[in-house]
């Protein structure tokens, strides 16, 4: 028996995130650690739950092991429900053969059954690779009030950067009149956030048509949205104001991590009752030693700081030994920085060991924007040097 759900969320989490290189070698991008004790997907999942959406399909494809394990039954987000809750939707074998998800639209097309089971009127399409906090319930209200067929969340970006995004041109009522993917000469600054609400039946008919078109690349941005626009469907823009960051590159991932630091952090992980939920271990409180220096840092349970930590984000169970220093860096967790070692302007994935006296990265001022990246499980030998911008993986 399936209870009807007004709106079902479909979270696209199958992307490789190839521009994160070593960090996504073994992990899908949505499962990359962020802000010490979160994974990127936590933001979208937490948004869903706190917007009152309790049925979320997570579409996985690339390296799903860590992601599957992380989501588990959905308990940390209260998504372990008798009806609905979070469900992992991998590609599958059907009567007429098996297919990988060929594009974002195709992934949803292959899982229309899931949406039908809950007899949802609306479908919310999300991607698991952005850092933002948004109340989808307000967007859904707006969609209903407008009587729209499709509502797309947009954020104002600087004109100079607009050519990196899918840009929506709207009329005075907010109705989308034109959509241009990465335009050379943008005529609007409203960038699509990749968040769509569709009326179910409309979505299904366009997805079915798209699947039947052999020339289509089965992508929402490239195919489905332009097709709906061309057919004159009522498509509305929903303006979002607040923190939003695509963390698809090493430098944007580093920047977003740094945004949780400072006197008045740009990115607040908890505001009132709204907080980002996550699955995490049960580690003891962090210990800051007698001679430690901790200045402008975000530190998580299980850490032991005996050396210096400045302008850095540390995940669970990081040990910074005597005389070691960590500056301008992101350490994802379960890492040991040996005595006297130095880590500067770097991102270290889980389970890294930096031997005594080793040097990773270069001071930020002289690194010329080149962040050193060390992949999961790498051991940097004592006394070794890892230059700025280096990319190490196992």
């Amino acid at each position, binding site marked *: 028996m399936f209870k009807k759900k007004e709106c079902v969320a479909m979270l696209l989490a199958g992307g490789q995130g190839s521009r994160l290189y070593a960090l996504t070698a073994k992990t899908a991008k949505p499962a990359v650690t962020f*802000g*010490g*004790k979160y994974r990127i997907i936590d933001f979208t999942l937490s948004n869903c739950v706190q917007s009152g959406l309790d049925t979320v399909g997570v579409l996985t494809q690339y390296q799903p092991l860590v992601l599957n394990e992380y989501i588990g039954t959905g*308990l*940390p987000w209260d998504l372990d429900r008798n009806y609905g809750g979070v469900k992992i939707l991998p590609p599958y074998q059907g009567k007429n053969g098996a297919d990988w998800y060929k594009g974002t639209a195709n992934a949803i097309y292959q899982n229309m059954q899931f949406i039908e089971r809950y007899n949802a009127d609306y479908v919310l399409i999300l991607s698991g690779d952005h850092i933002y906090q948004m109340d989808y319930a307000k967007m859904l209200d707006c969609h209903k009030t407008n009587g729209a067929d499709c509502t797309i969340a947009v954020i104002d970006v600087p004109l100079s950067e607009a050519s990196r995004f899918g840009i929506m041109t709207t009329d005075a009522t907010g109705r989308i009149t034109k959509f241009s993917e990465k335009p050379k000469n943008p005529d609007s600054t409203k960038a699509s956030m990749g968040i769509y609400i569709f009326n179910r039946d409309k979505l299904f008919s366009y997805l079915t048509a798209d699947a039947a078109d052999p020339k289509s690349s089965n992508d929402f941005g490239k195919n489905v949205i332009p097709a709906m626009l061309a057919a004159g469907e009522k498509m509305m823009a929903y303006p979002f104001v607040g923190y939003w960051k695509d963390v698809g590159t090493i430098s944007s991932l580093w920047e977003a991590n740094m945004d*949780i*630091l*400072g*006197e008045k*952090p740009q990115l607040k*992980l*908890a505001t009132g009752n709204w*907080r*980002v*939920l*996550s699955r*995490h271990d*049960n580690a*003891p*409180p*962090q*210990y*800051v*030693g*007698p*001679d*430690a220096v*901790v*200045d*402008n*840092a*975000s*530190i*998580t*349970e299980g850490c*032991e700081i005996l050396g210096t*930590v400045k302008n850095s*984000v*540390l995940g669970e169970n990081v040990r910074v030994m005597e005389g070691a220093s960590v500056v301008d860096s992101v350490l994802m967790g379960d890492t040991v920085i040996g005595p006297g070692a130095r880590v500067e302007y770097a991102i270290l994935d889980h389970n890294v060991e930096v031997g005594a006296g080793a040097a990773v990265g270069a001071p930020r001022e002289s690194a010329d924007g080149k962040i050193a990246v060390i992949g999961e499980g790498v051991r940097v030998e004592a006394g070794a040097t890892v230059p700025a911008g280096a990319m190490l993986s196992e």
Partner: protein
Amino acid sequence: MTAAGLIFSNIHDSSVPELTARRTMASIPYGGRYRLIDFALSNMVNSGITKVGLITHYNYQSLLDHIGNGKDWDLARRHGGLKILPPFITAYDNATANKVYSTRLEALMGVMDFINHCTEDVLVLSDCDVICNVDIAQAIERHEQNGADISVITATVDTAVQPLDAHAEVVKVDAAGRITDMATYDAEKGEVEVSADIFVVRRSYLQRVVADAIAHGQTSFYKDVLYRQLPKGRVFAHHYDGFFGRVNSLESYFRCSMRLLDRGSCVNLFYRHNQPIFTKVRNSVPTRYAPGAKVSNSLIADGCVIEGTVENSILFRGVKVGKGTRVSNSILMQDTLVSENVRLNCVITDKNVIIKDNRELCGHETMPFYIAKESQV
């Protein structure tokens, strides 16, 4: 040998009246993010016990809030799991009507249904006033090898470092590990071997001796049951030599807490191989050290925001320390807000305390200044 657990949440409450005014001994916050019951529960769970009865008596709202359905200890189960056993008073009875049990023995009698319905061979009984990380599986194995009726977990306490009171039971043990004598603590000096108030006992044996003692109108588990069984030679001690703390006063609570700032002790308690201490997950954000924060030799839970100076202190989850403030030798419980330019030394703030700007509060390590839950200074 299969085992089930039984935890007494209220015994010894009266020894720390400040901290138990609105909670049980079991739910006293400890070590930045724990409650005392976490040690009893984790010890059991780590030894493979999957069924635990939790005996509650009064004041147990905060305890139930902490425990929930037992999920954080992996005790939310279809079969077994955590069973909460509140006082049981029959509506139509005579002698026991309107009378809530007051001793360990009566409490055991009150939960006889739980004990009878267990199918496990042995029961592990534990109080909540002791902080330790014991391998109970090993104790159960030894219990079986010894053919013991009751095994008592014991630890060595140096009374010069950890003063004891008359609630402590001192044991004398022979070379074979048998307990030959047992008595309440009576001002002995130096190192003494004391009961950790954790027992491994054969279930059928417990059923028999408890029924027998109640039938004879007896009330004390130690004096009327344990003491009398000693001559039979089947009560054994299982010595534990890890971190051992006993909370029997506010001062001892302060001392047991501060011992965690000794890294060796802290590691000994929390980082035992395969014996993690579990607690309720609260979903706090990581702790933020603002520019200019200064922290040394302190244990800090997640969810804190530190803008001032913290030294030799323990901060629970969600504590805020404002600019220009200096917190020394203090324990600040969950969600304490310390505003700007405050001085705190040897202070214990209970949950949700607010210290306003420019306050100066100072206690002494032998007499920490305690500020009750939700007070404002």
